[in-house]
C-alpha cells in the first residue's frame, strides 16, 4: 500500500471539470511531480490532497486514512504550500510559524526548538523578528515552506513552490526538496515548468485539461509518449542516400546534413524509430550510429499530445 493513493479523483466547479478521473500513488521517500500548463487542474488536485477542496468523485487515501472522512487526522501528517502567498502582513516571521505550530498543537518547548531549526534550514533565522510584509518574495516563499514543515509532515504538498524565485533560490529550494525526500517523506510538487521537476522528481505526472496525460519516470515518460524527438544518424558512406530516404520518410522534418552525420526531428515513439532504422538499412544505408540527441525532458515533452492515461496505467 502506498502512502498516498489517489483513485479516480474528479472535481467539478459548476460546469467546469477541473480534475477528471485522476489516479496515482506516491510512496514514502519519493518525489512526485505534477506538470502541466496553467489551468490544467494541478492546483485543484493539490488542494484536494490538502483536504481543503472536497472531491466530486473518487477517493484519496493518505497513510491508509480517507482524506475526506478522516480529514482531521490526515491534516496532522500533511504539510501544504499553496500556489499563492498566504502570509499575515502584520505578523512577525517567528509569530507566523508559532501560530501554525499552535494550530498543530505543538507544545511550547518543542515549538521554539522546531521554529529555530526550520528558520535555519530556510536561511531566515536572522529575520525571525521581521514582519512578514518586509520579506522579499523569495524569503516569503521560504517562510511558507518552513511553515509547511512545522508539524514534521510525512506528506508534503508543494503547489508551484519555485514560482517567483531567482535562480539561486530555486537551486536552494530544490536541494531542500531532495533532502526532504531523503528523510522518508512523500513529496508532491506541482509546477507549470517541467524543467523544475525533472531533476528532483522520481515520477512525473503530466496534466492537461484536468486529466493525467502521462505518468512515469523520466525514461518511462519518453517511452510512453509519442514525442517529437531529435535524432542523430551517422552513416559509413553515401550520406546523400540516407538524406534522400529520410526526406521521403513520413514524420521527418528539420533534416540537416553535415559530412556523414544527419540530424533530424522525428515524430514517433521508440517502435516507430526502430522501424525507420530498419527501412534505412533495407534501403542500403550503412549505419554507424543511430541515437537521440540529448535534450532536456521539458523540451522533449513540449509537444506531447494530451492523451489521458487510464488509472491502471497511471500507477507507477
Amino acid at each position: 500500500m502506498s502512502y498516498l493513493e489517489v483513485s479516480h479523483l474528479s472535481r467539478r466547479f459548476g460546469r467546469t471539470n477541473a480534475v477528471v478521473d485522476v489516479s496515482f500513488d506516491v510512496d514514502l521517500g519519493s518525489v512526485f511531480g505534477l506538470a502541466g500548463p496553467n489551468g490544467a487542474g494541478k492546483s485543484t488536485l493539490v488542494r484536494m490532497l490538502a483536504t481543503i477542496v472536497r472531491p466530486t468523485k473518487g477517493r484519496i487515501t493518505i497513510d491508509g486514512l480517507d482524506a475526506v472522512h478522516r480529514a482531521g487526522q490526515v491534516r496532522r501528517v500533511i504539510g501544504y504550500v499553496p500556489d499563492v502567498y498566504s502570509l499575515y502582513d502584520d505578523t512577525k516571521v517567528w509569530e507566523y510559524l508559532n501560530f501554525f505550530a499552535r494550530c498543530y498543537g505543538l507544545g511550547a518547548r518543542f515549538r521554539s526548538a522546531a521554529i529555530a531549526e526550520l528558520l535555519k534550514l530556510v536561511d531566515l533565522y536572522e529575520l525571525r523578528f521581521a514582519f512578514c510584509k518586509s520579506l522579499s518574495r523569495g524569503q516569503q516563499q521560504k517562510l511558507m515552506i518552513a511553515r509547511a514543515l512545522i508539524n514534521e509532515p510525512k506528506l508534503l504538498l508543494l503547489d508551484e513552490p519555485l514560482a517567483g524565485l531567482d535562480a539561486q533560490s530555486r537551486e536552494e529550494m530544490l536541494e531542500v526538496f531532495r533532502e526532504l525526500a531523503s528523510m522518508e517523506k512523500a513529496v508532491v510538487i506541482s509546477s507549470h515548468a517541467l524543467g523544475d521537476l525533472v531533476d528532483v522528481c522520481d515520477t512525473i505526472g503530466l496534466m492537461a485539461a484536468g486529466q493525467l496525460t502521462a505518468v512515469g519516470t523520466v525514461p518511462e515518460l519518453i517511452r510512453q509518449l509519442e514525442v517529437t524527438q531529435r535524432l542523430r544518424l551517422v552513416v559509413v558512406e553515401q550520406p546523400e542516400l540516407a538524406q534522400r530516404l529520410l526526406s521521403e520518410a513520413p514524420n521527418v522534418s528539420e533534416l540537416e546534413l553535415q559530412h556523414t552525420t544527419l540530424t533530424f526531428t522525428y515524430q514517433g515513439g521508440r517502435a516507430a524509430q526502430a522501424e525507420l532504422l530498419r527501412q534505412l538499412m533495407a534501403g542500403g544505408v550503412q549505419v554507424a550510429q543511430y541515437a537521440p540527441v540529448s535534450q532536456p525532458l521539458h523540451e522533449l515533452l513540449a509537444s506531447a499530445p494530451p492523451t489521458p492515461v487510464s488509472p491502471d496505467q497511471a500507477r507507477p
Partner: protein
Amino acid sequence: MTMNPVLVQEMRVRMRGGTAYLLLTTIILVFGAFSLATFWAITNIVRPVAPVAIQVAGAPAPAQGLPIDRILVSQRGPIFFLVMALWAIVLTAFIVPGTTSGSIARERETRTLPLVMSTPLSPLSVVTGKLLAAGSYVVLVIAAGIPLFTLVVMFGGIPNNQLAAVAAIVLVTAFAFSALGVFVSSIARNGLLASLITYTIVLALTLGSYAVYMAASPLSKAVSMKYALYFSPLAAIVSALTQTNSQLNSIVSQFFREPGTRVAGEWWSIGHYPLWYVTTAGYLIVGVLLVLAASRAINPLRRWI
C-alpha cells in the same frame, strides 16, 4: 490545556501598536463625557419645582398622585443607570461590527484561510477564536467604562438583580452581535461588504425595531407591533429596569405607547415572560446558531454553500 491559537494570534496582532489603545481611550473619553453630561443634567435639571408638602396625620390625602417632578427626582438613580445602560448597548452596537465583520473575510482576502483550514484546527475553533478575540476587546471597552457606572452610587436605588440583568443583557448582546459579525464575515466576499451588512442588521435590530413599533402605533388599533421591540436590546434594557419599578415605568412608558392608546400598557411582557427574558434568550440562541453556521461555512469539506 492550550489556548485557542486563533485567539492568541488575534489578540497579539489587535493589541500591537497604538491604534487599539487610541481607540479605547477615545471611546472611554466619549463615554465619560456623555456620562458626566448625563450626571450633570440629572442633578441640575431634574429638580422639584415646589416644596414638598408634608402630610399631617389625620389630614385628607391629596386628590392626585405625586407630581411628575417628584417622580423624576425620586428616580434620578434609575434614570441615570438606564441612560448609561442604553449607552453601553449603543457602544456595543457601534464597536462589535467593526471588530468582528472583517475577521474571517480578511483571512479570505489574504488567502490565509485555506492554509489555516489545512491544519488540524477545527472550523469551530477558528470561529470561536475570532469571536473571543473580538468579544474580549468589546468587553475590555465596556469594562473600562464600569467606573463611570459607579456614579449611580451617588443616587442609589438600583437593586442588585437589576445590575445583574443589565450586565447579562449587555454581554449577551455583545456575544450575539459578535456572532453575527463573524457569520457575515464567513460568507461575505470581503471585509468591507461584511462590515456594511453587519452594521445594517445591527442598526435594524437596535433602532429599526423601535422605529417600526413607533411608526406602526398610530396606524392600527387592532394590530400591536410591540413584538418588534423583542428584537431590540435597548427595549430589553428598558424592560429589565422598569419591570419592578412602576415609577420609572410611568416615565419611560411615555415613549412606548400601545397602538392607538394614550396610556402605556404592559408593553414589556409577553404572557408571563418579561420582554428582556425573551430578547436575551433569543439573542443567546441565535448567537450560538450563528457561530455553528459560521464554522460550517468555513469548513472546506462541507456539502453546502
